[in-house]
């Protein structure tokens, strides 16, 4: 016989958490429902019903526990499904059907659950709506858990200690949280995926490679098989031959090296060749992004988009909901600063719970501070929560889309009101919490010399500022080529804002995408910016770019560039000059993976 095996499979899916792992498969067991009916006596049936009720109690305890853990681990929004599971478990019609089946058919609890499971499966199978059809998995999940709990079983500890690759049809958030927290998961491969992104989020934050959407990987492998899971390219290889293993081992090494490089960069000093210090911070949306951002070298959270607290729910968050998020942020980042931007909702980022009408021109409509100053009570809830979370003195308050001085005055009045309220209740907060404004409307930029006297800092939102200033929607393909951050008009405007801030001695930072682009970031450095905030994955490359230049030289180059007439001339000149003096500055370090 020919010994050469070529029968290994490569299965494509979606890589949702980067990295590569090789290891043994652990299929998460599906409950096999009993298919044998054994008749029992009437007396026994009473006992069976009691056994089932006990199993139900155990199941309830487990679900409550999972709900709590998932809630604290990945947010209450995700734990909601377990509330549904609890309700299904306690559903009167479910229990009475089970009782009836046991007592009338004189059968075991196992058989009764199997029967009911079949019955509901049939009902759900007949549903044509795909989304509602999927709900059968909720009922199935509850019944499986109940079934498993009929016999209290201890997990085989020895098995669980070995590092394995989890292969499952779909991983419930509860399973995912439990298993990943145990810390012996090499990788994850799922049939389903995409929609259940909590598993992906969790995997990413714990550095566990994951590929989802593999359709039928559970049918193709069995326990004990060996797999390569390539979370970077979204591929799974079943029983790879040695050559393929080697290939992937070298790929894994490359990835690990890249990761180490990033970590090295993170530890390097943030200063230019001529010793000018700069600071790189992270733009984030979830509190659990803080730690990964810091590990990439972020020196604080330069922009926390607080509207994401609203996007994750269907009702309005209350003060405690806000407070929990802000406290966690402050705690995880301390002593580094966290700039919390009050909600930037409205326009295209509309929310039904806020009852904002659809507008013909959302970018110019009711959004951000305009919404907050209209729904003042809602705004005060947010201000109170931010203040209460500020006890560690590392929170900064940032107001978006300021257009005129009056808005700053109104915010200050409201802030004063909220502060007095808290003081009267003896609630502690940072009385000197810095108040800053986003400079993202050209009108604000034009009066930034006046505004600088009224606030503690500026944060320049270059995306919106440029969009409004150049009248270009960069998401509109027909005009996006006109979106030019290095347009001389933009540089003049930026120069004016920065000068206004410096004149009053207040801090000024940039949190738009200009910060994340090496060339633009260098131009900003030349204009006098020392604080940059960006998507954390770009921090290493910007750090490298800024570290490889002499600030003095860049300032000179930019000063000269500002005398040119067009964006094109400016860009050409700056690139040429920078490369001449600092050949490595614009090396776009590859960001090979989405993290």
């Amino acid at each position: 016989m020919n010994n050469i095996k070529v029968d290994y499979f490569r299965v494509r899916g979606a890589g949702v958490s980067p990295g590569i792992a090789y290891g043994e498969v652990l299929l998460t067991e599906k409950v096999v429902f009993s298919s044998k009916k054994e008749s029992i006596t009437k007396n026994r049936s009473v006992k069976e019903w009691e056994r089932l009720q006990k199993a139900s109690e155990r199941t309830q305890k487990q679900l409550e526990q999972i709900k709590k853990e998932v809630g604290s681990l990945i947010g209450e929004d995700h734990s909601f499904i377990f509330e549904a599971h609890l309700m299904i478990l306690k559903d009167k019609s479910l229990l009475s059907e089970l009782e009836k089946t046991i007592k009338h058919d004189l059968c075991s609890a196992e058989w009764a659950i199997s029967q009911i499971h079949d019955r509901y499966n049939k009902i759900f199978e007949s549903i044509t709506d795909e989304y509602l059809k999927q709900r059968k998995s909720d009922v199935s999940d509850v019944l499986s858990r109940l079934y498993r709990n009929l016999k209290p079983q201890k997990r085989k500890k020895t098995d669980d200690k070995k590092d394995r690759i989890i292969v499952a049809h779909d991983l419930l958030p509860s399973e995912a949280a439990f298993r990943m927290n145990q810390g012996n998961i090499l990788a994850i491969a799922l049939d389903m995926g995409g929609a259940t992104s909590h598993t992906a989020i969790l995997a990413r934050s714990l550095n566990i490679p994951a590929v989802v959407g593999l359709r039928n990987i559970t049918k193709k492998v069995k326990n004990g098989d060996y797999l390569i899971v390539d979370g970077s390219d979204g591929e799974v290889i079943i029983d790879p031959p040695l050559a393929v293993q080697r290939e992937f081992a070298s790929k894994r090494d490359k990835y690990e090296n890249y990761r180490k490089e990033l970590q090295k960069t993170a530890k390097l000093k943030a200063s230019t060749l001529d010793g000018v210090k700069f600071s790189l911070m992270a733009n984030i949306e979830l509190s659990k992004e803080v730690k990964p951002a810091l590990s990439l070298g972020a020196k604080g959270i330069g922009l926390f988009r607080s509207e994401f607290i609203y996007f994750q729910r269907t009702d309005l968050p209350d003060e405690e909901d806000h407070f929990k998020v802000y406290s966690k942020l402050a705690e995880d980042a301390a002593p580094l600063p966290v700039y919390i931007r009050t909600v930037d909702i409205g326009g295209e980022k509309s929310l039904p719970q806020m009852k904002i009408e659809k507008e013909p021109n959302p970018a110019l409509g009711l959004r951000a501070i305009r919404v907050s100053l209209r729904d003042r009570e809602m705004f005060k809830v947010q201000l109170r929560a931010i203040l209460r979370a500020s006890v560690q003195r590392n929170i900064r308050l940032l107001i978006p889309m300021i257009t005129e001085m009056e808005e700053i005055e109104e915010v200050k009045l409201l802030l004063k009101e909220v502060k007095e309220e808290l003081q009267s209740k003896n609630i502690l907060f940072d009385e000197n919490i810095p108040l800053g404004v986003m400079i993202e409307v050209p009108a604000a930029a034009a009066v930034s010399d006046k505004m600088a006297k009224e606030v503690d800092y500026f944060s320049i939102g270059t995306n919106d500022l440029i969009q409004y200033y150049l009248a270009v929607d960069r998401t509109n393909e027909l005009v996006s080529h006109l979106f030019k951050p290095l347009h001389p008009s933009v540089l003049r405007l930026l120069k004016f804002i920065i000068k206004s801030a410096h004149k009053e001695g207040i801090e000024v930072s940039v949190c738009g995408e200009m910060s994340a682009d090496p060339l633009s970031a260098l131009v900003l450095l030349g204009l006098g910016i020392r604080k940059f905030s960006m998507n954390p994955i770009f921090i290493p490359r910007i750090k490298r770019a800024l570290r490889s230049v002499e600030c003095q030289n860049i300032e000179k180059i930019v000063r000269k560039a500002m005398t040119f007439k067009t964006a094109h001339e400016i860009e050409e000149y700056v690139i040429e000059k920078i490369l001449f003096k600092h050949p490595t500055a614009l090396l776009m370090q590859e960001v090979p993976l989405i993290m």
Partner: protein
Amino acid sequence: MITKEITVKNKLGLHARAAVKLVNLANRFESSVTIEKDGNIIDGKSVLGTLTLAATKGSSITLRITGKDEEIALESLEALINDKFHEDE
């Protein structure tokens, strides 16, 4: 007993989250609540029943409420359904 026919308006229909909201609300009232769709009648206080109704967007369901607080119960349940269970779409 009062009866009212209502159209489900939210995009996802009576899915788990919406069903939980509906059932939780129904359970706050003393009155009995049944929901009928295409001849199937289920207990409006049972989440399982509500899920099996498979009420998708645009389907018409009939609420039947009997008891002392039937008026206010109907009013609240109707408001929840018409408000798309506080969902986006």
